[in-house]
Structure formats: C-alpha cells, structure tokens
C-alpha cells in the first residue's frame, strides 16, 4: 500500500476538515494532489503535528480535524497519545502512516520495523478507537467511518517506504501558515 494512494482515496473527503500533516513525504504527496487552504504542513518540529491537531480540536470542538502523522514523528512524542486520549476531542482523527522508516533522511528503520506496535500503544494510551489497515480500500473505509463517527480515533496505516522524488514544494512555510489561520478565521464569519 502506497501512502499517496491512501491520500488520494480520501482527498475529496478532506474539503471540510482542518488537516495537519507532518513533514517530508506526507506533506509533499498531499500537496501533489492539490493544496487547499485548510491544509497545514508542519515541515519540522517532529512529533508536534498531533499536538497541533489537539490544540485545534480543543478550541474548535465542532470542527473535524485530521492529523496525518508518521511512525518516526509519533515515536518522538508518544506522550501526545496520552494527552489526546485524556481530553478525547470527539472530532479529532489521527492517522499514522507507518512505513517503519525515517524515509526522508535516507530510509533508516524505526522501531516499528522491529516490533513496536503503534496500535497497541495508542490503545493502551486510552485512544478509544484504534485500527490498523493494510489496503487502500480498508484505509478509505476506516477514514470515512471515523469521520462519520463521533469519537477520537487513531488509524495506523501500514504503507511502503516509498516517497516522492522531491520534498520541497513551492509553497513557503509562512504563506501556508498565514493562509491556514486566515481560512479558519473565515469559517467563523460564514
């Protein structure tokens, strides 16, 4: 299963969500499908994408928030799972693309390649709904199901350690950040 195929399978569902991604392949591949003002790409600060999604979800409880995380990033901030579970925002969806690799720095294997089980960690941290998927069809079904549901969900998507040819895009970090905030503020006045 390729991450970009997963993203493509749910791209049309993301229109009315606030989307936060990690750096590297996830950011580049989502942008390659078409940037939208409701997408924020955290191009560094590994581990904090889920915290950012939590901050958004706590402040905007009626808003659907999706975080596209990765195994390398999540392993740097496992405590975030316990904090998310503690406050349990009902409309926060936490997707983890687990390619068992720190792909963008050269493909070094992470601990999920030697048995660390992110589904188990998420479940034991108290995330109420956790599932692991291995096909694009089951990924799409899990994401759309979580978006129709009403509880904090983590989806671990086991994907191949394959990424795009390049990671830098023509969207500057600050342009993305200001556009994202302005988009959210515009939702309040509608």
């Amino acid at each position: 299963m390729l991450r970009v195929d997963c993203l493509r399978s749910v791209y049309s569902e993301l229109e009315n969500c606030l989307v936060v991604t990690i750096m590297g392949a996830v950011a580049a591949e989502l942008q390659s499908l078409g940037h939208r003002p409701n997408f924020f790409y955290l191009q560094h600060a590994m581990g904090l994408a889920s915290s950012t999604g939590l901050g958004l979800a706590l402040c905007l409880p009626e808003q659907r928030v999706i975080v596209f995380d990765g195994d390398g990033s999540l392993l740097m901030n496992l405590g975030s799972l316990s904090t998310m579970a503690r406050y349990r925002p009902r409309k926060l969806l936490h997707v983890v693309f687990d390619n068992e690799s720190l792909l963008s720095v050269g493909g070094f294997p992470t601990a999920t390649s030697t048995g660390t089980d992110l589904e188990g960690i998420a479940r034991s941290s108290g995330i109420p709904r956790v599932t692991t998927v291995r096909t694009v069809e089951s990924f799409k079904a899990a994401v759309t199901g979580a978006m129709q549901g009403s509880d904090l969900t983590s989806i671990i998507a086991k994907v191949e350690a394959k990424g795009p040819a390049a990671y830098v895009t023509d969207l500057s970090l600050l342009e993305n950040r200001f556009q994202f905030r302005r988009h959210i503020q515009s939702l309040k006045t509608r």
Partner: protein
Amino acid sequence: MPVSASNSKLIYDALKECDIRLVSALPETWLVHLIRLAEEDPEMILVRLAKEEEAVGISAGAHFAGVKSAMLMQNHGFLASINGIVSFAHLYKIPLLMLISYRGSLGERDPWQTQGGNVTEPVLQALRIPYFFLDASDTVRKRIRQAQTLAESSLQPVALLLTRDLMWEE
C-alpha cells in the same frame, strides 16, 4: 504550602484579562495554585501535558483557531521544549506566552534544580526570546499584558520568568 496563593491569583486574573482561554501545564510546585485556578474555571481550557514540548503544538493550534493561550512550565520544561520552539514557533512565527518558573536561582534549596537555573537565561538569550521577570505583585498585571501584546504583535515566543520573590512565601 508556602507557594503564594495570592500572587498566583494575581497572575491568573491577569491572564484572564488578556483573554487567555487555553492554558497548558505540566505540574510543578510553584504552579499548583495556577493550575488549580485554571481547572476550576469553566471558561478555561486546561491541557495537562505529558511533556512541555507538546504545549508548543497545542498553542500553535489554538493560535490558528483564533484562541489566545498561555504555557505554564518549569524552566526545565522550557529546556525540554527547545526544538518545538525553534522548529515550530520561530520557523512559523507563532506567538507563545510562556510563564516559566525560574527554579535553581537565588534561594534554591533543591540541589537538582540548580543546573537548570544556571542556563535558563543564557538559553533564552541564545534563542533570542524576549524575557522579563515577574518578581513583584504590583507589576504582575502590567507585565503579563505587555508580554502578551508583544507576543501577538511580533508573532514570536515571549517568556516571563516567575521568580521565588513572587511565588514563594517563607
């Protein structure tokens, strides 16, 4: 407990006057009253953290959502947050109001706090984070308001160091 309840209340009321609606915290002795005040306040979102660096992401999310936030942490928690501050708050110009208890400085009795006390200001300086002291009850309200204003206008982290003189009653 000799942590000053009255000065903690002053700090909390000043945060409220700045329209702070989310407070993230990792408990430490000097912060107990502040955290309790946040917990008892139905208007405040309190996020208890596993590690202080999470607060950078949470405050960034709050900023995107249009909500003003503050971070309560010990100086060792600040030290544990540095990559988040540099690679998120500085890189993406995120305003952060950081209230940092300044342990390991004048009058510190706990040996384990002392190294962090030595490096807190040099690290703030190295990171080019504007920092100011909360050291007297009569200036708390004004300094918090000014620090919050500066963080919002400059779109960067601003630190307030909570000192023993303010937080501790012997």
